[in-house]
């Protein structure tokens, strides 16, 4: 059983009250959360230190403008935070941040994580025309019932990692029918308990409802299988890959938003990977034709090689793709199979080493000749 804080308000109000309590009580110096920019539904991650600035904060808004793991990495890249900060993030954002910390791209110190069981987020294009705002009531209806909301990111539809692994506090959302009336926050860690201490509300012992979440998991798994099967149908060898990725513009937008792609100097953007006239000549001589810019397929397979082991399947890549390539599902599918090789779940535990940086002496005999 986990110590749980119950606030008798609807879940969004409840979280805001907790955040205000943390700021006003001096328990944290800052809050990292989604905040409304305007009425059209644009939101952005913001760092807030004054509690009156929390008025238009929307911590649980179903949108991921940027993977917060990437933002928190930038926040703590040049040194740990000197003062305690509470960050409200989605489970995959937390996992992405853990993966970045493993790569020495950030520090967990002085950051407390509030996460939730996650119903998924809408694609970013829906934020632009206000569609998210119009769908909000439908979204929460579905989450309450433990169903998959319509129109969310494909990556979210098939996501089975909707429970946070290492959050200090977990908000009970999915399948929780009374989120209109009360806000249940599980205090998973000692830090979580200490933060919530003296907060107005009831403290009780509770667990997430396993039966409801298992049911939700089954729905997600079925959806995931459908998405994977569809992609497998198209992914038939090199021809299939070209069919899917041939229209890639080479904009590298997917790598720019990918939380795992952290290199400041990307190998695929270095002058070395730029084709010289002699490269064009030799390639053209061999093939009799060449896509321009060349190397988009190489880029995609290369990116798979670089990040598949740590792909958290957040779906940010697909969200920004201007030519609608189903990148996130392909990366998720390949990523999961690669991760399974090493029994690895990215972001599960900061102490687990990235499989490529370690080894067992006796393993993988199946790949040897």
């Amino acid at each position, binding site marked *: 059983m986990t110590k749980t804080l119950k606030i008798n308000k609807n879940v969004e109000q409840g979280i805001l009250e907790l955040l205000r309590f943390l700021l006003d009580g001096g328990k944290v110096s800052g809050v990292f959360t989604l905040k409304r920019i305007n009425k059209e539904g644009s939101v952005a991650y913001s760092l807030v230190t004054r509690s009156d600035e929390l008025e238009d904060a929307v911590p649980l808004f179903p949108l991921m403008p940027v993977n917060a793991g990437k933002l928190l990495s930038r926040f703590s890249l040049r040194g740990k935070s000197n003062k305690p900060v509470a960050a409200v993030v989605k489970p995959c954002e937390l996992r992405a941040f853990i993966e970045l910390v493993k790569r020495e791209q950030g520090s967990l110190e002085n950051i407390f994580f509030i996460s939730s069981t996650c119903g998924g987020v809408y694609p970013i294009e829906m934020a632009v025309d206000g569609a998210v705002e119009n769908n909000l009531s439908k979204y929460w209806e579905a989450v309450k019932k433990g169903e998959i909301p319509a129109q969310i990111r494909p990556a979210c539809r098939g996501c089975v990692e909707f429970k946070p692994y290492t959050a200090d506090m977990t908000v009970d959302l999915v399948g929780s029918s009374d989120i209109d009336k009360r806000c249940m926050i599980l205090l998973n860690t000692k830090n979580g308990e200490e933060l919530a201490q003296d907060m107005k509300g009831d403290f009780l012992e509770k667990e997430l409802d396993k039966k409801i979440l298992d049911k939700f998991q089954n729905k997600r798994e079925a959806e995931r299988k459908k998405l994977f099967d569809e992609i497998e149908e198209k*992914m*038939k*060898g*090199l*021809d*299939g*890959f*070209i069919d899917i990725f*041939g229209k890639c513009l080479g904009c590298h937008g997917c790598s720019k938003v990918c939380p795992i792609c952290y290199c400041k100097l990307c*190998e695929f953007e270095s002058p070395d990977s730029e084709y010289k006239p002699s490269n064009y000549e030799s390639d053209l001589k*061999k*093939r*009799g*034709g*060449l*896509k321009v810019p*060349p*190397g*988009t*397929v*190489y880029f995609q*397979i*290369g990116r*798979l*090689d670089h990040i*598949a*082991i740590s792909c958290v399947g957040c779906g940010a890549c697909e969200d920004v793709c201007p030519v609608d390539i189903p990148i996130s599902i392909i990366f998720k*599918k*390949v990523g999961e*199979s*690669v991760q399974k*090789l*090493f029994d690895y779940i990215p972001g599960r535990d900061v102490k687990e080493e990235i*499989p*490529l940086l370690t*080894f*067992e*002496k006796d*393993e*993988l005999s199946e*790949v*040897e*000749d």
Partner: protein
Amino acid sequence: MKKDEEFMPRILAFLCNWCSYAGADLAGTSRLKYPPSILPIRVMCSSRVDPLFIVKAYLGGIDGVLLAGCHPGDCHYEKGNYYTRRRFALIKKIFEELDMEADRLLLSWISASEGPKYAKVATEFTEKIKKLGENPAKNKIFL
């Protein structure tokens, strides 16, 4: 290539300086026979081979890639080949998942004294690639 000519694959072999390259050398000095399909590249350690080299070679149209190093436990740098094995497993899995003829990739441990093994691996791998035929990437334009 003329039609009646037999297809001779081109296989890129990354050989580590301390074991497999010496093994290949031994195969030569022992006058062992193996097909003229192998294009060797000497690397200081098999772990020097970035999996992207393999991807690049494959997309460039090479028919097969052989990656060879010291036996596990015998690495000149003590643990380089353990990392190689994980990286190779990763790239092979990616090829498998994309349904892209993972059989064209081979990892083998060949020590400096294993000239016959080198000749055997080279022969068998060449035969395997012959059965697979030419790399389809060779004539693809949209790469």
